[in-house]
Structures are given as C-alpha cells and as structure tokens.
C-alpha cells in the first residue's frame, strides 16, 4: 500500500488535534476566534496580547 505513509501522517496529525482539543476543552479556553475578537484575558498577573482591546 503506497498510502500507508499518509495514514501514519494522519494519525500523528489527528493525535495533535485531539490533544489540543482535549486541553482547551478541559481548561475551558475561549475559542481562537473569540480571542482574536478581543476575548477576555487576565489583565493583572496574567496579561495577554488581546487584553485592552476594547474600543471600536
């Protein structure tokens, strides 16, 4: 089978996606879209690049 390498590649890729999803779901993280829209970040003691983006 010539496509075994692709299947192995998919297994690694899917494991990474599932790992990321498990982490953000467990942590209750906002979605990346929400972060880009100006999602809530911890202002004191945490910070974050989206903090302070409030006004239109």
């Amino acid at each position, binding site marked *: *089978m*010539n*496509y075994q*390498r*692709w*299947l192995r590649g*998919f*297994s690694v*890729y*899917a494991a990474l*996606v*599932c790992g*990321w*999803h*498990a982490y*953000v*779901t*467990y*942590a*209750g*993280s*906002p*979605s*990346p*879209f*929400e972060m880009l829209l*100006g*999602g*809530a*970040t*911890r*202002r*004191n*003691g*945490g910070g974050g690049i*989206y*903090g*302070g*983006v*409030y*006004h*239109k």
Partner: protein
Amino acid sequence: MAGETQVPSEPAGESVKALRCPSCGAAVTLRAKGQSLAVVCASCHSILNTQTETPTVIGDQGSARNVKPPIPIGARGKLHGETFEAIGYLRRSDGSGNYRWDEVLLWNPMRGFRWLHVYNGHWTLFTMLTTKPSREYRAASYNTQRFALFEKGKARVIAVHGEFYWRVRVGDETEVEDYVAPPFILSQEREGYDEITWSLGEYVEPEEIAAAFGLTTPLPRRVGVAPNQPNPLSGIGPELMQYVAIALLVVALFHFFFSGEDRELMAARFHYQAGITPATWISPSFDVYGTHGNVGVGLATQVEFDNNWAEFEVTLVDENSGATFAGAREISHYSGRDSDGRWEEGGSRNGIVIGGVPAGRYHVEIDPILGDGLRQVDVGVRAVRGAVVWANTVLAMLAILLFPLAAGMQHSSFESQRWQSSDYTPSGGKAE
C-alpha cells in the same frame, strides 16, 4: 516492438554463440542463439543479420552509436522472481522527435523476452501478449480490466545496441497506441496493416530496477507523472475515512466528557442611562469553585436596537487578590430594505468566555458605551461556571476533516498531472 514471445527449448548456457563481424572482424556475442535475428557489433556498430550462416551487414547506426543503454548489455537481474539478461537496447522517439525514451530487451531462455521501458526516470516492465485485448471506443479491455486510451503516435528507432528477435534498423517506424489502468499499461504497436503486437506493462519502482541489476550509478530522477504510475493515494479512501471517524469520535467524547457543566453563578439585570446612572455597573458577588475551567458572562438587552449598537466592557474581578479578567462585547441590531427585500443583522445577545479562572469570590463590572442617539439600555447579565465552548470542538472537527480534503486534492492533482501529457481524458474524451 515486433514479433511474439517464444520460450526457447535450449537450457541456459547453451544459447550463447560467438560470431565475427564481417565489417570490422571483431568478435560478436549472440546471447539468445536461435532467437535473435539481428545483432549490433559493439566495435563498429554495424547491424548484422544473424539468420544467414555468415553474418551480413544490414545497417549502421550512424551518429547514434554513442548512446549508452541505462542497463548495460549482458547485465542480469531478478525481476518479479525471474532472472533476465539485458541483451538489446533501443532508443526511440515519437514522430516529432521531441520525446525520447529507452527500451531494454530482456531475455530468459525459459521465460522468453521482456521489455523494460524508461521515460523521464519512470520504468515499466512489458510482456508481450499472445491473446489480443478487445478494443472499445477510446478504451481497451484485457482480462476483465478496462484501460483508457492515453495516447496515439509514432515510435521511431534512433539508436540500437545488442541483439533483437527481428531485423532492427535505425529509422524503423511503428504506430503506437497506449491504454492505461495504473499500474498497468496496454501498448499496441502496428507495423503496416497486418503486423500488430500487444504488450502488457506494469510500473516498476526505480529502486527495484537498481537493486535487481546491481546498478551503482544513480538512475535518472523521476520527472512528472508517468501514464501508468500508481497514484500514491489510490484506494486510501475507505481506510482514511475509518481513521477520520475514530478521530471525530474522540473529539466528540472529549467534548461531552471534558466540557464544563454550565452552572449558573449569578443572574441580574441593570438599567443604564448615559449621564444619569453610574458609568460602571457592579454585579452582586458570587463564588467560583473548582480548580480549572472558564467563567462565561452572557449579556442580553431587553429589546433589539433600531439600527444602533452598544459596547460593553466586561471585567471579572477576583475580590480576594484584586486580579481582573477583562474583555469587551458588542450588541448591535441593524435592518433595512434593498433590491433583494428586507434584511436584518445582529441581535440582542452576546457573551464572553473567560478562560482559566481559579476558584474564589468574584463580581462582574460592566461599562456600557452606547451608539449615537442611544441614551439608555436595559441589560440582563448571567455568569456561569464551565460555559460550553462549541467553537473549539467545531474547529477540531474541521481540522480533522481538512486532512481527507487535502488527500483528495493531492489525489486529483496527481491524476491531472498524469493526464496533462495525454491528448485524451480519463473518461475517454478528447482533451482540449
């Protein structure tokens, strides 16, 4: 190629014969005695007729004598479980002379002849057929397998080395038709009106050729996609979809088992009037429990705005440490009418998810900013622990589905590269 496959009766070792070139006097070895009708003198490059008692010169290769075979004449190699010896070599070109390829004639006294074609670094092992494939409109069938017409054209001999089972000459020309069903290819050669030969070829990986013949010099790199080169992703569909289904199931399980419980912590309403009420509304205090998870703050206005907006700066304040989590959300509603009829966008709700909020006592502060002409607003506020974030799950599922999409595109791209060099289409049509 012309002639038919014949399995000689002589055992290996007794089929070699030594001749003397009538042109230069050099010794000429005939490796398939009784089968070969022509041999090229390695010394003066005269083409000799070996059917007569004493060889006679029937041709010369002229300027093509310095062309080197990709597999040396006399080299032996095991292909598909059988040992073959390279005894002849042709370089051929199409009618225009723009495309050139090499053909190596292989010989096994018990198995007969085979041909190895190499073009742009792609190798195909051909066996001549004794049964004729059936032809259809721009297709051919052999052993229940259907082959699509790939190309029609001429093949002209431009260089020869070694020996052949017909009286080969430089300049010999045949009509060729190729039909493909990767990794197989059916090739028809027609010389005149009555001499038709069919051969069945199978793609061979270059590494297999190098290993079989013990070739130490690197083989030419593969260029493009060969007509019968197997698509690396051919047949991946069912197995890949099983993998994808498992991955999607895992994501769904994570979502249902790991997502928060969406428990309400606080619910309140406030009225804001610009310049009258305080600029910041402060919610009642509430306890956040648990070691991990988010806090979601939902906002809803009592009525939809009439082509207006309001922005709410939301701050979750940890009353013990003073740490704050901040963000902003807009609620807007617009409507109107255009040539397509009535349109509407926005709504009366929005929310914010604040990730990684530790346990503690908190309250929410909200600073409304109203759009032009908007003086007051009634807002409902709800805070929950463990707000379910569907977007992350949808994103993970899309990321997983991206892979089969990429595989499908790669498969299509390979096929389109294959058919780029054809005048026809896989379905039997004529390419534009």
